[in-house]
């Protein structure tokens, strides 16, 4: 009997202690107030006093496709002068010596950089952690950081290493943010139907409750080398844009989660926010619009 007690006691004790401090386990129901994007096709034409930016992910392999996407982004900039680009990680593949920053970043986007367009990077699994110090990625030497443009708060995370310090920072930053629009972006998708990686459920358990609680409306990630828009989950719209340089053709395995997807060519996104609406357009490297729509601001409870 002593053995059974000795075996069971720690389990009961540890479970008791843990359950009395439930940590991150916060079951949340569906969020209210999301306007569906379905059918609302827009061209993301420039509007006064709007915030415009572009999105690329898994871009930095220095291949021809990355240069093609860069040219298409520049062509789009003519009619849609976006202020900055968010880069969702794996901004550099392979060797990452000083010369590589030229061939895998500065040259593909040279016209945009010359026009004053800034890139704000997140770290992917192929990025050196030291790349956060590279001025072109505007990370200020931080693995995770935040910035504000007009009425929009961006929270950039390093999902490679989701340590408690970063998690607490993200929660605190979002809780304190007075901006109505809150957008999070990072490398590993919480939801994805990409055949190679798919959803990172462990990260989702950690991050989604925070996003739901503090009013994040949109989340961008990459890692799977396809484009996918996920149906709103608990009120949040999730995008996977991991095909701005590398592509896994035909790797998208649509499921009940999938709202739209594209896995036949490289792509990037154009975003415009004004008032309570965010319009988006996903463009292939040949200039074809493969997805578009409008997302309404998710009210903060």
């Amino acid at each position, binding site marked *: 009997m*002593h*053995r*059974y007690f*000795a*075996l*069971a*006691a*720690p*389990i009961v004790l*540890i*479970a008791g*202690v*843990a*359950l009395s*401090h*439930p*940590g*991150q*386990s916060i079951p949340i129901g569906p969020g209210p107030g999301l306007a569906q994007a379905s059918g609302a096709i827009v061209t993301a034409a420039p509007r006064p006093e709007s915030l415009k930016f572009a999105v690329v992910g898994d871009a930095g392999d220095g291949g021809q496709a990355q240069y093609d996407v860069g040219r298409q982004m520049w062509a789009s900039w003519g009619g849609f002068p976006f202020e900055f680009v968010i880069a969702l990680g794996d901004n550099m*593949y*392979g*060797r*990452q010596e000083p010369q590589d920053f030229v061939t895998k970043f500065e040259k593909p986007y040279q016209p945009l950089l010359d026009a004053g367009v800034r890139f704000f990077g997140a*770290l992917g*699994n*192929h*990025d*050196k*952690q030291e790349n956060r110090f590279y001025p072109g990625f505007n990370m200020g030497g931080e693995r995770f950081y935040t910035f504000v443009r007009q009425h929009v708060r961006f929270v950039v995370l390093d*999902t*490679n*290493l*989701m*340590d*408690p*310090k*970063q998690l607490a920072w993200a929660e605190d930053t979002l809780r304190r943010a007075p901006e109505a629009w809150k957008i999070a972006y990072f490398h*590993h998708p919480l939801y994805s139907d990409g055949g190679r*990686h*798919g959803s*990172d*459920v*462990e*990260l*989702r*358990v*950690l991050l989604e409750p925070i996003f739901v609680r503090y009013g994040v409306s949109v989340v961008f990630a990459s890692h799977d080398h396809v484009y996918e828009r996920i149906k709103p989950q608990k009120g949040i719209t999730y995008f996977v844009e991991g095909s701005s340089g590398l592509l896994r053709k035909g790797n998208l395995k649509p499921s009940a989660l999938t709202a739209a997807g594209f896995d036949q060519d490289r792509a990037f996104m154009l975003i415009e926010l004004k008032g309570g609406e965010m319009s988006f357009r996903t463009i292939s490297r040949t200039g074809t619009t493969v997805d578009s729509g409008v997302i309404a601001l998710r009210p903060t409870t």
Partner: protein
Amino acid sequence: MTTHALPHPAALTPARYTAGALVHFTIEHFLLLPIGGLLALIWANTRPESYFTLTHTLSFVVNEIGMALFFALITQEIVEELMPGGALHTWRRWTLPAVAAVGGTAGSAFVYLAYVGFKYEPVLTPGWPVAGAIDIAFAYFIVKAIFRRHAAIPFLLLLAIAADAFGVFAVASRHAFVDVRPGGAALMAAAIAMAFAFRQWKVPTFWPYLAICGPLSWWALYVDGFHPAFALVPIVPFLPHAPRSLDVFTDAPHGRHDSPRHFEHVWKYPIQAVLFLFGLVNAGVLLSGYGTGTWALLSAAAIGKPLGILAATGLAVALGLHLPLRLHWRDLVVVALATSGGFTFGLFFATAVFPVGPILAELKIGAVATGIGVPLAFAAARLLHVGRFGHHSHHARAAHTEM
């Protein structure tokens, strides 16, 4: 970590015989940890949200508090083996296995880092100590199954203990991810001073050490940015001890080891429960989460580590050290392959090096997959006619059959 105090199933009443025998077998073979790991794998891949919600709730208590007891037990065994009368008392006994452990650690680190460098995933670089981890119990049971009683067994145990000791030093610091606060060194000094005082006062039981020095040391490491699961490691050397032989999993120490004042006597079952929870909390990974870290770890553990062990041992022998009596090179190949499995220590080192995220998941899958060491070791033993597959054993069996 001995099982000497377990009542034999035959001593139980018939009605409880089956359950008693099952518990006896499970505990004797350290199966609670793999059972927890198997449950975790099934749960994580069928109901991942509920699994990860639970594990994030439990992980701190299990990994950073509960595991302190496990490392205390391991430390106590090593300390007792190093005492006069203990199996490791003379340096001659452990020099060659320690050299082999250096080789294994270096070999696994080299292959791991080369693979990660080849695949250009530098974020994985800090994970090299995970590749050098050896699950002591896991390796022991493989070698025991192949050799039964043989010089290979103490050699393997010494090698594994030394390799994991290197790993502990490598993963103890977590300065990259935690805030360091002042006062840790003073707290640790107080904890050790108090343990020293208890020792001087000849306090006969471990409880004051555990209840007073333990929390002080735990807090010292925690605020200083080191893994608090190692909190009892500097305290245990001051505990009351009794020397032991090396065969830590099967020997039958008596006297002070059986005393309720002895740490091992009181904690051996609760620690098995902690190990069950450790397997449950840490081994659950989505199998789709494999990646470069998985392959790097697997190749380092199954190729780099055995080659490193053999190369370092060969070098040491060339420089004048001697292999233990009756341990031949063919035996050593099998022992080296048996060290591939990192399971418990691999999982622990991985959680110590990396916080939650896909990088950790890749390494966890790799740590679980190092179970490939079992068939590798058995295949090598069969090919090389070693241990139970040896000519001697074969002839002995044949003679027995003819009789």
